[in-house]
């Protein structure tokens, strides 16, 4: 007994080091999360170090305290909240419109080879076109109001989204469709009750990813005739070389993107409990 216990102890202490370095092995979530935290702290200290020792001029990279002051200022003046909400509104609207159109088309393309053959080559060509280049054209087409900004966000997300939803729909196993047809279901019923239900988690993930991309197009969208918005604030700061305001804006966009991302991840777990059989 004594001997066995000692083996057990040896094993468990050894297993701790083993685990960290082993291919694909799980590590305690404590370590997992603190690694992430430590990395953020590391980056922060590096930033502090580079700026406070004047290794980099503040014009090139302002220190964290300058960005923090700018944050407080914008927060205090109410600009920050106003910008964030204006941007969020545009992002959501652009993304929702893109989604409303992309979902049915993606479903058609995923289910019917005819539509896939018809639209895929065209979308393949278009999706590499740069949204920035469309800015003057969108002004000509949609004026300078919110609709122009939303059009840019639409161009930035729609084409990728359609292709991704097509792939989601294609991932439904053929057998599930076949078994439904043996119950006498019509094509429409199969589409609604089987294909869409099965593809939903994948589509939800596509929503998360495309909404994230929409954030990266925000600055381009708010290039023109905006008077608020995080992207607008960045453009404006560029004019006056207010690097701390640029950095703040970039951080804010990253953060907003991360938050919307996390909301989708969270609802995913709530909505699709059946995926890991947790009921």
């Amino acid at each position, binding site marked *: 007994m004594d001997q066995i216990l000692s083996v057990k102890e040896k094993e468990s202490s050894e297993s701790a080091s083993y685990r960290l370095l082993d291919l694909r092995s799980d590590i305690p979530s404590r370590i997992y999360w603190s690694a992430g935290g430590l990395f953020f702290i590391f980056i922060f200290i590096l930033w502090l170090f580079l700026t406070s020792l004047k290794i980099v001029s503040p*014009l*090139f990279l302002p220190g964290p305290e300058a960005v923090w002051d700018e944050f407080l200022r914008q927060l205090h003046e109410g600009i920050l909240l106003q910008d964030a909400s204006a941007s969020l509104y545009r992002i959501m609207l652009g993304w929702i419109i893109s989604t409303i159109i992309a979902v049915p088309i993606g479903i058609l393309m995923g289910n019917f080879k005819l539509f896939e053959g018809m639209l895929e080559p065209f979308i393949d060509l278009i999706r590499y076109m740069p949204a920035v280049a469309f*800015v*003057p*054209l969108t*002004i*000509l*087409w949609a*004026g*300078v109001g919110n609709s122009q900004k939303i059009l840019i966000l639409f161009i930035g997300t729609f084409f990728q989204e359609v292709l991704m939803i097509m792939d989601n729909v294609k991932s439904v196993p053929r057998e599930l469709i076949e078994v439904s047809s043996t119950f006498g279901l019509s094509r429409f019923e199969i589409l609604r009750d089987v294909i869409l239900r099965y593809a939903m988690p994948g589509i939800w993930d596509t929503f998360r990813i495309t909404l994230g991309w929409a954030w990266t197009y925000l600055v381009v969208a708010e*290039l*023109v*005739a905006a*008077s608020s918005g995080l992207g607008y604030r960045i*453009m*404006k700061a*560029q*004019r*006056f*070389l207010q690097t701390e305001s640029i950095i703040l804006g970039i951080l804010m966009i990253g953060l907003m993107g991360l938050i919307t991302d996390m909301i989708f991840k969270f609802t995913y777990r709530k909505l699709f409990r059946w995926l890991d059989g947790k009921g």
Partner: protein
Amino acid sequence: APAPEETTKVRIGTQPWIGYGPWWIAKDQGLFEKYGLEAELVDFIEDKEVNAAFASGDMNAANIATHTALKLFSVGLDLKLVLVEDISTSADAILVSNEISSIADLKGKSVAYEEGTTSDLLLNYALTQSGLSLSDISPVPMPASDAGTTLLSGDVQAAVTYEPYISEILKNNDSIKILYKAEERPGLISDVFVVSAKWAQGNEETVRKLLQVWDEALQYYQENPEDARKIIADAVGSAPEDLVTAFDGVQFFDVNENQKALSGDFLTTIQDVAMVSQSIGLFETIPDFSNLIDASYVD
């Protein structure tokens, strides 16, 4: 002016340029309302966006540089130049690092500037005056907003840009100085107020009122310089003390001065601008500009 019963809506495209400052004064002081106008000042960041917006018909009027007006006219846009707003004296300039002392020194140096803009004009004009051309320097095209930054980072030896960038750059670094200013050819860099011809037809009264607003705002500027400059600085997103040199670098034109200019001086200026514009490739042949200018509103 008599208080009107109903208001007319006008959309005016602008950029954060102090030369368009009187419009913000008008906004701040309620001058538009006074004349029964409901004006919306739509703020753009780059020329090309104002151009596109004006071309799309989304703007009834726009504040643009003279050469831009020529360009828009040359591509067949139906517009009327109704007012010369300002000319730049030292608000557009060629900035250099300390070791360069003349335009001739630019030979072989890299110069940052934005193509197709006032900077392009100024640079070309300056080079031509010294017997050089673009092929003698190494051009580094980029947005005017980035040109100063680039000069600061030491990647180019010269940058052509305008206010407020000039002030920003000079404030940040004393190894950089102004080499050449727009006042060397007065009017070369100037701004005009254009209206859509289609819209103006039937809205003659509104155009006239707009010019009256401009005049009155300009008057306010002259009478309350402190206050007026603060309004403008706020609008372009800067602090008044940062813009002192900028304000000194522009010369505004009121309606009276326009009466003279639009029927004389400025016509020759336009020809000069057209020639330099042509040399930078803005258009291939110089069109007939007789239909562009409509001096009737300043009479």
